[in-house]
C-alpha cells in the first residue's frame, strides 16, 4: 500500500489489497481461494460426516442436513415451481450453502491470526470476483433453464404481456446479475469494514452488536441471493397459461 498520511490507523485495514498468484498469464486472488477452500472443505466435511450413514430415524448431523435440505427444497419449490424445482435444487442449495458458510466463516473464523504477505483472509463473498461469478452463474442458469424447458419459446417471455416490455426485459437481464453481485459484495464487504473499523476504534464490547447484526445480514444475504436465483429460474421456466 502506498504510504498514507494516516499510516498508523490504516495498518489494520487493508482494503483492495490482494495476495496475487500467477497462473500462466493470469493473476488470481490467492486469499479468496484460500478462504473459499476452507469454506468448501467445511461444507464437504459436514456433508460427508452427516451422510455417512443415512437412517430412517435421523441422528446427529443427519438431522441438520435434513433440515437444510428441507429448507432449501422449500425455497426451490416455492419459487421455481413443482415441476422444475428438482433439477435446480442442487444449484440453489449450493449457492445458499456456499454464500452462507462464506459469510459466516468470514465473520466467525479468526482469519486475522493467519498472516499473509499481502491482503488478508476474509469471506470469499467480500471479493467482487466471487459475487460476479455467482451472479453470472445465476444468469447462465436461468437462460439455460428457460431455453432447455421451452426452446425458443423462452423469448416470448420478453414480449409478455406486451411488446412494450421488450427493452425493460432486456435491461433486466443485465441488471439482474449486476444487482445480485453488488448487493452481496457490498453487504459483506461493508459488514467486514464496519466491524474492522469499530474494532479498531473501540476494541472491546462495542463491535459486538455490530458483529451480531453482521451475522444476521450475512444469513439474510445468503437467503436473498438463493431466493432471487430461484425466482429468476422460476420466472424463466414459468409456463404462461393462455
Amino acid at each position: 500500500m502506498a504510504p498514507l498520511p494516516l499510516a498508523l490507523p490504516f495498518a489494520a485495514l487493508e482494503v483492495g489489497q490482494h495476495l496475487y498468484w500467477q497462473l500462466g498469464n493470469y493473476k488470481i486472488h490467492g486469499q479468496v481461494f484460500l478462504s473459499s477452500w476452507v469454506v468448501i472443505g467445511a461444507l464437504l466435511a459436514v456433508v460427508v460426516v452427516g451422510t455417512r450413514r443415512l437412517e430412517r430415524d435421523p441422528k446427529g448431523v443427519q438431522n441438520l442436513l435434513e433440515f437444510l435440505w428441507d429448507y432449501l427444497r422449500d425455497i426451490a419449490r416455492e419459487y421455481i415451481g413443482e415441476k422444475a424445482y428438482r433439477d435446480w435444487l442442487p444449484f440453489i442449495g449450493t449457492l445458499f450453502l456456499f454464500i452462507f458458510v462464506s459469510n459466516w466463516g468470514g465473520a466467525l473464523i479468526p482469519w486475522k491470526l493467519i498472516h499473509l504477505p499481502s491482503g488478508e483472509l476474509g469471506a470469499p463473498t467480500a471479493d467482487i470476483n466471487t459475487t460476479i461469478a455467482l451472479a453470472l452463474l445465476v444468469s447462465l442458469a436461468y437462460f439455460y433453464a428457460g431455453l432447455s424447458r421451452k426452446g425458443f419459446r423462452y423469448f416470448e417471455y420478453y414480449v409478455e404481456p406486451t411488446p412494450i416490455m421488450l427493452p425493460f426485459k432486456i435491461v433486466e437481464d443485465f441488471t439482474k446479475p449486476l444487482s445480485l453481485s453488488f448487493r452481496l459484495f457490498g453487504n459483506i464487504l461493508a459488514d467486514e469494514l464496519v466491524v474492522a473499523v469499530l474494532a479498531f476504534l473501540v476494541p472491546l464490547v462495542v463491535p459486538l452488536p455490530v458483529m451480531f447484526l453482521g451475522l444476521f445480514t450475512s444469513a439474510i444475504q445468503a437467503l436473498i441471493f438463493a431466493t432471487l436465483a430461484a425466482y429468476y429460474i422460476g420466472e424463466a421456466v414459468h409456463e404462461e397459461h393462455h
Partner: protein
Amino acid sequence: MTSWLLLAEAGATAGSPEGGLFDLDATLPLMALQVVLLTFILNTLFFRPVGKAVEDREGYIATSRTQAKEKIAQSVRLEADLKEQLKGARLEAQKVILEAEQDSDRLYREAMAVAQADAMASRESARSKIDVQRADALSLLEADADRLADLIVDRLLPAS
C-alpha cells in the same frame, strides 16, 4: 467510510498498477468453475442421498398411514360385523329361552293334568270301594240287628 474506501482505492491504484476493490481477473472464471464443481459434488454427496432419505421416509410414512387407516377401517368393519353377530346370537338365545320356558310350562301342565287325573281316579275308586264296604257293613249290621231283634223277641215272647 467512503473517504477511507476512496483512500484505499486510491492508495492501491497509486501504489501499484493492480489491486483495488473492483479488481476483476482470472479469479472470476475460476471461482465460477469452483462453484459449479461444488454444485456437482454437493449434488452427489448431499442433495441426492439426503433427498432420497427424506423422500423414502415420506413414502414410508405415507404408506404406513394408509395401512393404518386400512386397518382401522377393517377393525371398524369387523366390530360392526361382530356386533351384528352378537345381536343375532342374543335374539337366538332369547328365542331358545322362550321356547324352553314354553316347553317346560307345557310339560308341567301336562304332568300336572295327568297327576290330577290319576289322583281323581284313585279317589273315585277309593270312594266307591268305601261305599261298597259301607254298604256291606251296613247290610251285615242290619242282618245282625235283625237277628238280635228276633232273638230278643223270641226270648221275651215265650216268657210272657
